């Protein structure tokens, strides 16, 4: 899988409460999650997520298991999340909903174009390539299928 987007730089330990607050969870309307994503971090962020790559610090997605966090980012148009490490539930959730979560350390410059090629194993930013930690074979299959729903539909 390949992709690209303009970098949105975030700090370490971004928790899922901050990605989408508990007060917005009780709905099936994904548009509500999209319009309130990162509201408690920066209310202006929700409007400019489309076509971006989030480049965050360590432990992205810690805290609550709420899958709405990964869905909100995907549906807001985030192409991928890149961080040196992820909280494990968010990591599984992201891959399961078809959002690439890429373990990679790079310094982030806001708005800079970031490209990635998961099969080749690199992220490119500012003219440099950085190696990524490969996904397990199972997670690669799930992501390639577009998420766990499609994976299961094709495996039944």
């Amino acid at each position: 899988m390949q992709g690209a987007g303009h970098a949105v730089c975030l700090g370490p330990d971004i928790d899922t409460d901050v990605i989408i607050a508990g007060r917005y969870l009780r709905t099936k309307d994904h548009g509500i999650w999209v319009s309130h994503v990162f509201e408690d971090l920066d209310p202006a962020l929700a409007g400019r997520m489309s076509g971006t790559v989030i480049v965050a610090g360590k432990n992205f997605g810690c805290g609550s298991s709420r899958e709405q966090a990964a869905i909100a980012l995907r549906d807001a148009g985030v192409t991928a999340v890149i961080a040196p490490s992820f909280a494990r539930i968010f990591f599984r959730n992201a891959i399961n909903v078809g959002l690439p979560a890429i373990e990679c350390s790079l310094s982030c410059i806001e708005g800079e174009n970031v490209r990635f090629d998961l099969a080749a194993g690199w992220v490119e930013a500012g003219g440099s390539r950085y190696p990524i930690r490969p996904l397990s074979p199972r997670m690669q299959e799930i992501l390639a299928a577009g998420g766990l729903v499609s994976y299961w539909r094709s495996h039944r």
Partner: protein
Amino acid sequence: MSTLSERILGAAAGEYVDRKVDRAYVCDGTGMLTLETWKQMGAERLSDLPQLYVIFDHIAPANNSTTATLQHELREFACGSFLHFSDIGGGICHQLMSEGVVLPGEVVVGADSHSCTPGAFGAFATGFGATDMAAIWLNGETWFRVPDSISIYLSGSLRGGVEAKDLALSYVSTLGMDGGTYCALEFTGDGTRTLPMDDRLTLCNLSVETGAKTGMFYADDVTVRYLAGLGQKVSPQVPEPCTYSRELEFDLADIVPLVAIPDRVDTVKPVQDLAGLSLDQVFIGTCTNGRYSDLARAAKIVKGNKVAVRTIVVPASRAVLAEAIRTGVLADLVGAGCTIGTPGCGPCLGAHMGVLGEGEICLSTANRNFKNRMGVGGEIYLSSVATAATSALAGEITEPEVD
């Protein structure tokens, strides 16, 4: 020679395994998304391999019509399927799993991050998201990466007035919010024998706040006796020499009352450093500290006095509430001016029943103090029950009496 995780999952740390799940549970929040996703997978029937549970605890009773309508759909499904169902007031999913349900050696997953809690029984218990859970509803199994394990070696015993929660905040502070990521925490050493099941559940509950996959105690005589009291006959698990990726040691006698300050669970200070901080609310409850022994400790402290700040007490389950009624603990709490909530998660996740207003400060026995979690503009400090109850009487953060 294996860690407990390696023994239960049947493979060495770092290996990937597909493993049948013994029990899988969802709450009202994650259950709705699980049901929707399970339908999208094209499933027509539930897997009959694991025991499946739907437990209403997060926003129970519903806070508004939108929530009530979503809950209605899940309730109808749960009641019409071969699922175990617990409606509003039954209690918190992790607590119900800990009342004679989860047994040593089982693989247990919950669609809630604090599903690491029943690891206290020597089970491999961990949290999942809704889509992974939907696949388990479909297939009865899931994949795991067998975790490396971190040993938390305990010696000695806690002093009076100091609680397992203080130790939990202490180890979270030592490891940091990602110090346990992808790992299991194993609590070992002679000090474990001094800790009753309720304390072990509190300690395993906080393991996810280090990023850990689970926290685990080996089943011992304490476990066997506790489960025997709930009608379950089990055998102890004998630890083997094994390799840990990291080892921490705590002398329980050195632990002091601690408070985690906003907005991070791993940023803790001794209670005495915060003494005098004025409070707007005290909250005693949750999957961390809402068990009977917690309510009893709170009651012992406030009995015969009046709380100086609004104080919400939420029993973790109906069984906890019933026991508190039977023993008079509830009367002591109500007599001291505490407000009692429906068994469940209470205001912990900021959805209902005690959320904070702008600028308000809450001292809570819960496990998370993230920004705005209990209400926009509110600040959450986390402590033990003894610290919370003592502070409720004073209306400000106050150190409990320590022997």
